[in-house]
């Protein structure tokens, strides 16, 4: 490949105790959409940070358009035509769109001129954006547009995108892909990082797969199945969750006209949420984050008390009960944020186990803790859920995201709940741990419990749910059987159009997603 835009040759980067990249080589042609695939910790982020000048490699070299390329800082990489859209948005909430964009420019002109250029570029690529709005008020999709426009204003030759679709609705993903195709047709190469394989098959022309810092394979994603790519990533045959056919049981959890005010300024109030859940079924609730997911979990778990008659467990009104009383009755919950919400980061796993399991597992007597039983319970969670840690006396903070998630989910499941509410069970968890968690949820349901699974990951919801509904601006759509639902139908449910309508995504006009304030 003599016409390569960027070539990496033997890049190696080691941190104390871990080799992040080991002898990584590949190249990207102009206009190519190149996927970088790998599990969490495979070294994708380190690699792109090297290209963007945030990390210096220990050895190896890069060439950009035939010249040696060794950026010592992002400024230099940007000057040579490399731009990056970050996974966690690198935006400043209190500043306006124009100010945010000026910060990414080398010699920014006056604010008014920046604003004019934002308007013209956003019109050119179908990314509507008001330059004077404060970024803190924008939806996730709009924030991403700010990042992309910021990159496009530098006229990049290579655009790096780190997990760009994790926060978008299917319609927003469609708009993004249109933009990427336009860019690619103009000769801009795109390095696309994701672990959503179907997306990569849709948009990418080449893929490099990393595992434990090394390149383990390359493929043409248009001709490789998602399963084959996943197995290359994981390095083993993937276990697909199995579900046993089961009869629908009795109603255990009844939510009737649940209204709850937003707990803080940026929260979402719940509006007239009504749904029932039966034993043995998994109810999947989809929706873009910030549409009332946290509030719904809080109202069900008992973190927030609600008015009488709104939440009933096995026919008994529980809206006024606090969390431990609900646990005693059989309703358990696992919130989304594992560090600091589901688990106290600086306390040991045993201590964390006591926090939710004290009631149901009899870990206390007359106010005194039974440490022996507590440690035994924590050990049981660690063993049953394959949590990789030296022991239960380690702090929760020391576990990787996936391992801690297995621990907090396992801690609730081993208490044999009748109803289990879980929010984002596999967020930021690698493929094999995610498969294990989903299997555990399905097993729990087939053992006769009712599971409410709230997630942004539609593939996950389709895999585990029996019925599916969407949460939008605090309103819950009517549940529909999950089997046979198409991505378009789900997209419309998420977008707030509860009845199916014809979408008008042509011509670059985006759907209102209802997430903007």
């Amino acid at each position, binding site marked *: 490949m003599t016409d390569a835009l960027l070539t990496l040759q033997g890049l190696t980067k080691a*941190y104390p105790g871990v080799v992040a990249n080991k002898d990584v080589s590949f190249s990207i042609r102009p206009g190519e959409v190149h996927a970088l695939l790998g599990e969490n910790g495979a070294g994708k982020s*380190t690699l792109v*940070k090297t290209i963007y*000048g*945030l*990390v210096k490699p220990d050895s190896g070299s890069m060439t950009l358009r035939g010249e040696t390329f060794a950026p010592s*800082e*992002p*400024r230099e990489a*940007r000057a040579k035509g490399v731009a990056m859209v*970050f996974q966690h*948005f*690198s*935006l*400043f*909430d*209190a*500043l306006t769109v124009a*100010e945010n964009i*000026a*910060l*990414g420019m080398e010699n*920014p002109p006056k604010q008014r001129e920046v604003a004019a250029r934002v308007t013209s570029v956003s019109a050119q690529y179908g990314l509507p954006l008001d330059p004077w709005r404060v970024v803190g008020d924008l939806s996730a999709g709009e924030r991403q547009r700010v990042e992309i426009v910021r990159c496009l204003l530098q006229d990049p030759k290579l655009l790096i995108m780190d997990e760009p679709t994790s926060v978008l609705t299917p319609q927003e993903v469609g708009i993004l892909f249109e933009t990427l195709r336009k860019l690619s047709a103009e000769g801009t190469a795109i390095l696309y990082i994701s672990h959503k394989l179907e997306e990569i098959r849709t948009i990418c022309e080449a893929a490099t797969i990393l595992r434990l810092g090394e390149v383990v394979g390359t493929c043409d994603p248009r001709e490789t199945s998602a399963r084959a790519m996943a197995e290359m990533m994981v390095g083993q045959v993937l276990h697909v969750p199995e579900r046993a056919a089961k009869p629908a049981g009795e109603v255990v959890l009844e939510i009737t006209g649940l209204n709850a005010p937003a707990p803080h300024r940026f929260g979402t109030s719940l509006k007239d949420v009504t749904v029932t859940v039966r034993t043995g079924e998994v109810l999947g609730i989809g929706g873009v984050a910030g549409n009332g997911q946290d509030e719904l979990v809080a109202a069900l778990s008992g973190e927030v008390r609600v008015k009488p008659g709104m939440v009933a467990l096995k026919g008994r009104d529980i809206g006024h009960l606090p969390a431990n009383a609900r646990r005693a009755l059989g309703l358990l919950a696992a919130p989304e944020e594992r560090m600091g919400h589901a688990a106290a980061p600086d306390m040991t796993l045993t201590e964390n186990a006591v926090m939710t399991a004290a009631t149901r597992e009899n870990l206390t007597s007359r106010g005194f803790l039974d440490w022996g039983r507590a440690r035994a319970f924590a050990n049981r969670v660690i063993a049953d859920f394959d949590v990789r840690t030296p022991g239960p006396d380690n702090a929760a903070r020391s576990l990787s995201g996936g391992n801690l998630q297995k621990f907090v989910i396992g801690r609730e499941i081993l208490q044999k709940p009748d109803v289990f509410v879980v929010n984002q069970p596999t967020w930021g968890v690698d493929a094999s741990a995610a498969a294990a968690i989903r299997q555990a949820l399905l097993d729990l349901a087939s053992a006769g419990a009712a599971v409410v699974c709230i997630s942004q990951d539609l593939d996950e919801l389709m895999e585990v749910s029996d019925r599916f509904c969407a949460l939008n601006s605090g309103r819950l759509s009517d549940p529909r059987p999950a089997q046979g639902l198409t991505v378009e139908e789900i997209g419309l449910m998420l977008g707030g159009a509860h009845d199916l309508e014809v979408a008008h995504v042509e011509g670059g006009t985006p759907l209102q997603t209802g997430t903007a304030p």
Partner: protein
Amino acid sequence: MNLSAIDPILLLASLMVAATPIMLAAIGELVVERAGVLNLGVEGMMITGAVTGFVAATTTGSPWLGFVSAACGGALLSLVFGVLTQFLLSNQVATGLALTLFGLGLSALMGQGYIGIKAPAFPDWHVPLLGDIPVIGPIVFQHDPMVYVGLLIVLGVWAFLKFTQAGLVLRAVGENHDAAHALGYHVRRVRILAILFGGACAGLGGAYLSLVRVPQWTEGMTAGAGWIALAIVVFASWKPERLVLGAYLFGGVTVLQLNLQAAGVAVPVEILSMSPYLATIAVLVIMSAGRAPGSLGRIFHAAR
């Protein structure tokens, strides 16, 4: 009690003088906090500035040299804070408190031979033409030059934050230091510079006390002015224009209560003495609606 002894023109005129030290210290701290650093050592930097300024001015006989040395002294002390918090990643609250205690002790040591000496005169500046306007002239345009220097600094900070690229970078660093780092800005460099500016301003504020307002050196003479400056920054919602209001309000009530004390009002002196603090905090709490810079007080570590 003799309220007629209070001359309203003189009262309003001394308001600007009483407000200046706090305004100087507060505008420095505002810049520091907009850069995302919480330096609780304002009191310590102020009193260090007060003593360095006083020593330099009495030794050389030049108040201007005194102010320059005070700014350097305050900045030097703040550099200790900067190195500790930005490079050695120590806790900002604890380090700031330690800085205040250190500054109080250090200034007492440095000022030992200077108690009871009078500072060289720092004559008022009668602004040509404007100073001759009746009523307004004596109130606004017949003060010592530092009053106007202080106002110019505030104006400069306001314009810097609002209109310049460097000001935008400083706000960005304070808002989200990780994102600023990812965009390739030097978080530590920006913060160290902001901390130095904050120290210099606090030093000026302290020297204004020892060279103009009192004007002599006594131990612990800042008497909590640094803490009021810190409070004014928060209640002014990190906005320079509100900060001026807060400082003048505090200065106004201070002067008024002193006059009332002198006039022999039948209110306990202790209550009069606490009134400026109460009034300033009450008014600013009522108006405050701002949001703190996103990264305020958080330790920045450019990890991986």
